């Protein structure tokens, strides 16, 4: 069975072809590097760029997979949450294909797709498990008692973790996107340079606003040349605080639900410090950790296709009335 997956909820225009037996046949992502000029996702440019790139990306995904449109068995597309203008570009293309090819259309929740990215590369990952979904727009711990069943254990109260990386990078004048820039810079820095606060919010909730403000306070209270000289130390100290909380709460959540598996998904899941620290501390707690490869952590079409194949196997499909839902609930 061949499923096309389309993802345009935020930065990336992404299309993939997935074979349910052979796996990913193609996975094309057109990273919108124009954003680096602006220090953030620029929605206006995001939806325009999606419009410009969606058809070339689709054609490339089909040709790389050596598949023609007529061979496809279904179209999966992210329908929320995200930026409405961006979501609509992917949904419109998916509906046109659904209508012209007369094959099933499957609207997919962006977070469900991220969780399926971990499942895609780790066939041994089956429920029950706890998923840590952590990106520029989301920071959530979710319990899956079964495939397709989601119990949200906790979310961020203010900023998402990836948003904190972006904002701290902007504050330090490091550019965009903040996640990979801070990750790289931190490798040369001392994580003990500053003890930034670990947010103490209850249970499985997160808070990143206090950590961001602590970095603001440090920068404002320190001479500019000290800040300049210790950029890598500040980045490493910030990253350590950001990652420490994610790791601790994920392990607590696994213990709370009495499961031995944690899946990580979302762009911040590509952060090398998070991957190493979680693996290390989880091993001590007798918990296994499952990651997608870094390329499947960020937004991509393959994860949408995988989630689509799952929904299609349950007979759950969408109609031409499928709409973008910017604040869709899981």
């Amino acid at each position: 069975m061949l499923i096309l997956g389309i993802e345009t909820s935020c930065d990336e225009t992404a299309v993939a072809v997935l074979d349910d037996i052979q796996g990913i046949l193609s996975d094309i992502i057109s990273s919108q590097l124009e954003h680096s000029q602006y220090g953030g996702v620029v929605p206006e440019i995001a939806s325009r760029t999606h419009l410009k790139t969606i058809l070339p990306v689709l054609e490339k995904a089909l040709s790389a997979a050596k598949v023609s449109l007529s061979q496809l068995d279904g179209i999966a597309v992210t329908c929320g949450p995200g930026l409405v203008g961006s979501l609509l570009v992917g949904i419109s293309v998916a509906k046109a294909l659904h209508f012209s090819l007369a094959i099933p259309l499957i609207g997919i929740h962006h977070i469900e797709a991220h969780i399926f990215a971990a499942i895609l590369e780790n066939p041994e990952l089956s429920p029950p498990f706890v998923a840590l979904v952590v990106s520029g727009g989301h920071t959530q711990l979710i319990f899956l008692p079964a495939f397709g069943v989601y119990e949200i254990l906790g979310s961020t109260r203010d900023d998402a973790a990836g948003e904190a990386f972006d904002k701290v990078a902007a504050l330090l004048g490091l550019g965009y996107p903040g996640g990979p820039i801070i990750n790289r810079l931190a490798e040369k820095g001392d994580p003990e340079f500053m003890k930034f606060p670990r947010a103490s919010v209850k249970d499985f909730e997160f808070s990143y606003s206090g950590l961001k403000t602590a970095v603001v306070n440090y920068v404002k209270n320190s001479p500019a040349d000290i800040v300049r000289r210790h950029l890598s130390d500040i980045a490493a100290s910030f990253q350590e605080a950001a990652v420490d909380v994610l790791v601790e709460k994920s392990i607590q959540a696994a213990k709370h639900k009495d499961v031995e598996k944690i899946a990580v998904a979302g762009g911040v899941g590509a952060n090398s410090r998070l991957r190493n620290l979680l693996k290390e501390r989880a091993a001590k707690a007798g918990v296994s950790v499952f990651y997608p490869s870094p390329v499947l952590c960020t937004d991509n079409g393959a994860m949408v296709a995988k989630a689509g194949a799952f929904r299609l196997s349950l007979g759950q499909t969408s109609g031409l009335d499928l709409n973008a839902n910017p604040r869709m609930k899981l």
Partner: protein
Amino acid sequence: MEYRWITQGPEQTHSLGQKLADFLHPGAVAALTGELGSGKTCLIQGICQGLGVTDPVASPAFVIINEYQGRLPVYHFDLYRIKNIEELYQLGCEEYLYGFGVCLIEWAERAEALLPEDSIRISLHWKAENEREIVLKNRVPLKGADGDKIHRECMSGRCELSP
């Protein structure tokens, strides 16, 4: 009319927000400005609580607008990522701004042309680690607002008023 408060810590900023909620009527637009870490989200979380919102109020930076229901509908904007005002028109911002809910807008300076003339202007300034100056400007005095009483109820010291 200009009201000026100094808050010591996020708890005071939050409780100031809660008090300010009493002066927001249906259709009110509060335009917030202030750099990263100045307390915009914290003040808005207080305002939302004061408006009876029970859902958690998180940063809407990713989706630009979050909607909540309190005793009035509340629309929480974060324009941090906005560089081109066109996109805000596409998102239907005018319907929010000229509707019957309360609009709370972070990084409002990025959509100056879109703001109604009678918007309440709130600017937040980082003074020291645990100290923020919060200045509220409105074309007319906030109906029934006693700046000093608000001040006494959420913090120590005096509210400075200038006409």
